[in-house]
């Protein structure tokens, strides 16, 4: 039954074969076209519009949008009082849209014009004109004269080559530093793209730089206007303004005297001065001498240029970049030095804090001490004899401090070293802060401890030292030093304000108070050698370090020295701490007391009155307090006489007139009480002169006597205690001057010895 059925079936299929074949093959055809063909197309389209979509879209947008960058105005840097230290001024930049060139003639004309205006290589500019781009920067920061020339070129291109939309002038900014070299190592400068390269400009670049704006224009492939174009502007956002804690006045005072110190002492490797608010850690001034012009940061000093010229040709480029980075270097944070005797204030604080010593603890100095078989000398070879703790600090006696260090032991020594913040960066908001160099834990031997006790053989940064000094003075609080007080946006809203940040209390308030007493004693006792300033209580310590382990400069001394002085004022209510140091002085002296202390005194004498620090004279000092002469002219002789006497002066009347027509000295301050004011009543009498006597080598009282005998006035500077001896006068002996003229006399303390 089955086989016939099958036969029948296959027979029928054979008959229907051709029709069946067409149907089957058509089905396969439809399958191939619709499934395989359309399927492939759908797959491909799906992939492109989903997986690859964002990537392709980005490329498309890049292609369609002519994106022009609009420079943002960089923020201004102000000092503590709102004086401008750095600001950006509007200039222009030249950009090109090379896609808009229609032929090579236009390209050549534009390239020729631009290369002539800006002194560029013609072929380089020509290459730029061939780019398939909407935006090529030709030259940034052009001034108005160049701008005029570019405008002319644009006109010419339009007229003679019917070429437009190719060259554009856009806003740009140029950085100006109105105070030139002031605080150069702190402020820093910017590079060709307005990016901060050094100092504050670098550290606060993200705040200062702002956000560049964009002009986005959708353009067709030929870069020309279409009736369907759209434009989108993203406004540039001006940078934020940075306010420094640095006070321009204090900074200039410091720079003035530091530069003088460098010159007077022929300092070979720069000087550093840091002034800090001891309570907040705000840096009031930070000087690295031989600053550079921020408006011209790549201009080396004549000395450096000369040096580079003398080096072999091959090494000149290297020497130049080394000289530049040395010039830009902020030595106050980026360099380390051995603090020397200045460090004794920390060692003494630690010993006091640990109750290992008190002011009655006595130390004997024979001029040297033997530690583990090695003999270490005191600066005073003959020895300080028996001295108490306070005298030991003032004597800066090395054997005494070695004993104190031994009392502390390496463990405690390290603990306080860390406590004062020497083992960590201070975290000051300036770039390039260096690390200290100290013995690793457990590696500090007996000799190491001995020499470390007077600040030798380890290295710290100046900013660490001043921070530690501030901690000694302010009750033991280690604060984080900072140079920026606040940041405001371009509209003046404060967006960041830097508050006082206390890291820890390393010594007690009690210890701090004791240290003030001892250090003030040191200053009082040593006078000008330890920062004594008449009318102010100063606490300070000098230091002289033998440089070890660094390349020796060619100083005339047997060793290279660092002369430093670190102190604070007023001692009873510390406000400002200051570190002054000179690296490798090569003049008459190298002791910190001789080199740095005078500079400290000079600076502080101007800074303290500027900061309105109240004067507090001792009774002895009161005798020499300055008096001020008023204006006595224009009134009758009698009236003038009364006024002069009321002000504490004696009056000398010259001439026969009834009214006073002039006076010597004129209105002035800083005169000694009892000085004479010469009142002139007619013009004939004004031609009288006196010869200036020598006022050197006298005590203040003697100076006063001599001066009044000659009818002259004197003004004192320096340590005017009764034991002081006048060391110089500003008008040389023998000079003819009018009676009453003020002569400034400087005093040095005769009782001071070199205690380092």
């Amino acid at each position, binding site marked *: *039954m*089955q086989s016939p*059925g099958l036969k*029948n*079936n296959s027979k*029928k*299929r054979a008959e*229907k074969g*051709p*029709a*069946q*074949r*067409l*149907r089957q*093959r*058509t089905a396969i*055809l*439809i399958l191939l*076209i*619709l499934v395989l*063909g*359309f399927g*492939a*197309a*759908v797959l*491909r*389209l*799906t992939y*492109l*519009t*989903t997986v*690859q*979509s*964002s*990537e*392709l*879209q980005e*490329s*498309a*947008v890049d*292609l*369609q949008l002519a994106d022009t960058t609009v420079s943002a105005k960089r923020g201004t840097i102000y000092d503590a009082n709102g004086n401008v230290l750095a600001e950006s001024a509007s200039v222009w930049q030249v950009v090109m849209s090379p896609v808009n060139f229609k032929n090579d003639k236009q390209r050549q004309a534009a390239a020729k014009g631009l290369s002539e205006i800006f002194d560029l290589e013609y072929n380089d500019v020509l290459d730029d004109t061939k780019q398939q781009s909407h935006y090529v920067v030709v030259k940034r920061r052009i001034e108005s004269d160049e701008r005029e020339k570019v405008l002319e070129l644009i006109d010419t291109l339009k007229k003679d080559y019917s070429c437009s939309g190719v060259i554009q002038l856009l806003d740009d900014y140029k950085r100006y530093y109105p105070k030139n070299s002031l605080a150069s190592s702190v402020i820093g400068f910017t590079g060709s793209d307005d990016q901060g390269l050094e100092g504050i400009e670098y550290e606060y670049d993200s705040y200062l730089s702002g956000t560049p704006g964009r002009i986005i224009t*959708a*353009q*067709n*492939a*030929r870069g020309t206007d*279409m*009736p*369907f174009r759209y434009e989108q502007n993203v406004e540039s956002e001006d940078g934020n303004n940075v306010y420094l804690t640095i006070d321009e006045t204090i900074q200039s005072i410091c720079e003035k005297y530091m530069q003088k110190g460098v010159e007077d002492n022929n300092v070979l490797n720069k000087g550093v001065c840091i002034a800090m608010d001891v309570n907040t850690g705000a840096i009031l001034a930070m000087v690295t001498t031989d600053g550079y012009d921020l408006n011209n940061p790549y201009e080396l000093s004549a000395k450096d240029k000369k040096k580079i010229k003398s080096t072999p040709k091959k090494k000149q480029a290297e020497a130049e970049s080394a000289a530049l980075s040395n010039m830009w270097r902020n030595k106050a944070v980026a360099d380390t030095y051995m603090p020397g005797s200045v460090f004794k204030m920390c060692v003494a604080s630690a010993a006091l804090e640990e109750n290992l010593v008190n002011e009655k603890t006595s130390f004997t100095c024979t001029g040297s001490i033997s530690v583990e078989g090695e003999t270490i000398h005191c600066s005073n070879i003959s020895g300080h004899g028996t001295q108490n703790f306070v005298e030991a600090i003032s004597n800066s006696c090395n054997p005494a401090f070695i004993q104190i260090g031994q009392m502390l032991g390496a463990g405690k020594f390290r603990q306080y070293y860390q406590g004062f913040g020497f083992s960590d960066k201070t975290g000051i908001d300036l770039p390039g802060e260096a690390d200290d160099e100290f013995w690793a834990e457990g590696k500090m031997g007996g000799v190491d401890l001995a020499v470390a006790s007077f600040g030798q053989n380890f290295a710290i940064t100046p900013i660490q030292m001043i921070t530690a000094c501030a901690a000694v003075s302010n009750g033991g609080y280690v604060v984080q030093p900072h140079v920026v007080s606040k940041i405001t946006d371009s509209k003046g809203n404060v967006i960041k304000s830097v508050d006082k940040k206390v890291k820890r209390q390393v010594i007690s308030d009690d210890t701090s108070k004791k240290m003030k007493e001892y250090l003030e004693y040191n200053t009082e006792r040593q006078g000008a050698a330890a920062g004594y300033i008449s009318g102010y209580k100063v606490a300070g310590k000098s230091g002289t370090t033998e440089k070890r382990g660094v390349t020796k400069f060619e100083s005339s001394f047997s060793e290279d020295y660092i002369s430093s002085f670190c102190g604070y004022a007023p001692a009873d209510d510390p406000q400002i701490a200051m570190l002054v140091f000179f690296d490798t002085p090569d003049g008459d002296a190298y002791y910190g007391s001789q080199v740095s202390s005078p500079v400290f005194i000079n600076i502080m004498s101007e800074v303290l009155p500027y900061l309105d620090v109240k004067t507090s004279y001792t009774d002895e000092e009161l005798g020499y307090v300055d008096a001020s002469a008023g204006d006595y002219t224009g009134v009758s002789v009698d009236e003038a006489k009364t006024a002069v006497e009321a002000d504490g002066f004696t009056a000398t009347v010259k001439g026969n007139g009834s009214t006073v027509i002039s006076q010597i000295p004129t209105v002035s301050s800083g005169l000694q009480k009892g000085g004479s004011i010469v009142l002139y009543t007619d013009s004939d009498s004004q031609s009288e002169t006196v010869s200036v006597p020598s006022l050197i080598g006298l005590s203040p009282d003697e100076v006063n006597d001599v001066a009044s005998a000659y009818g002259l006035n004197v003004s004192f500077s320096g340590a005017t205690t009764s034991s002081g001896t006048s060391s110089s006068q500003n008008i040389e002996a023998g000079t003819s001057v009018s009676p009453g003229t003020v002569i400034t006399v400087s005093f040095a303390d005769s009782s001071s010895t070199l205690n380092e």
Partner: protein
Amino acid sequence: MAPQKRMMLKADVNRIYDEEVYSEQKIREEKFFVRPTRQRKMKKGKLFSVGMGLDLPFCIIILVLLIIGMIMMFSASYAYAYYNQGDSYYYLVRQLIFAVIGVGIMFVLSFFNYNKLHKVAPVVLAISYLCLLVVLVLPGSEGVKRWIPLGIFNIQPSEIAKFAIILFFSHWCSKYYNKMQFARYSVLPGVIVFGSTALLLFLEPHYSGIVIIGILSVVMLYIGGMQTKYLGIGLGLIVGVVLILAVTNSLSYAMSRLDGWGQALEYTTDEMWWTTYQTRNSLYAIGSGGLWGLGLGQSRMKYLYIPEPQNDFIFAVVVEELGLVGALMILLIFALLVWRGITLSLRAKDKFGKLLGIGLTSQIGIQVVLNILVITDWLPNTGISLPFFSYGGSSLIMLLAQMGLVLSISRTANIERQ
């Protein structure tokens, strides 16, 4: 009992295999889609005949594609037209005129008795050869000779060649349907007709034309009944010839077009950047479209980034504006066109009609697939236009005329429903 039951089943099965019964059943099922038929019989011998009604779904699909194509062509071209012709409507107006003429021709031809073409097929083939020869004599432009200028519009001989090939093979295969298993009735004419046409196109040169005509020849011979083994041999030969030509470097033009194929986004040299410029921008446009597109008229790449966006690369602009979703809808309509065209052709009364209808409909499907694979960088950029979308007067008229023939076939297909 059981065997008897089985026999009955077999009888049923046999009946279902019966072609005519099957067709009738199918037609009844599909009644909903078909226009109410007029009860008049088509008179033989008459050139035009109302006959049975034309296939309405197929007709609607064509018109829908034509309208969508027109809108998209306008959207893609107006920026280009504005810039190059100074008139945004330049291409739209021309395409509209051709479309109106084309639709007119389509409806007229739908009344045409396509059987008349059976006998003239060799003549049409001869005309095609003539055109292909004439174009070679003409000067051409930029070393390429593809167009015969005829004043108001140009004729592209390759368009005629495509039609001639379909027509000729429909004629040949239906005439010798029962002898198609013999190589001399299938392979021989295939090689002669395709080979000679391909040679002439090669001289133009017009490689995409060769590819399409090659595929069409294979399709026609395959459904015409050629043995599959010959098909394999034929395909092997074609691949061999192409390889030899490639090796001997005679394909310099084609190779230059292949250069950078699939590397549109990874150009390394300036030269490559320019070679792949069109394809790369097409990919950017498609990618920008994403899932939902930028919106009708919102394409950005049509602003001169894609050269001649109204031509071969129009679909890239379509995807950019309508997104993947829009693109798939359009592809779906094309698929419906192919499906409907082929199935209605299968119902034609004679073999010639069936083959002709299938051939003409397949041509559209093949071109759509090739076009999309070209603009998406899966095939080298060789100039294959998208039916109903790409700008071009003569090819649009040609296309609509061919659709007219398919509609005319649909009239006879519906006769069988009586």
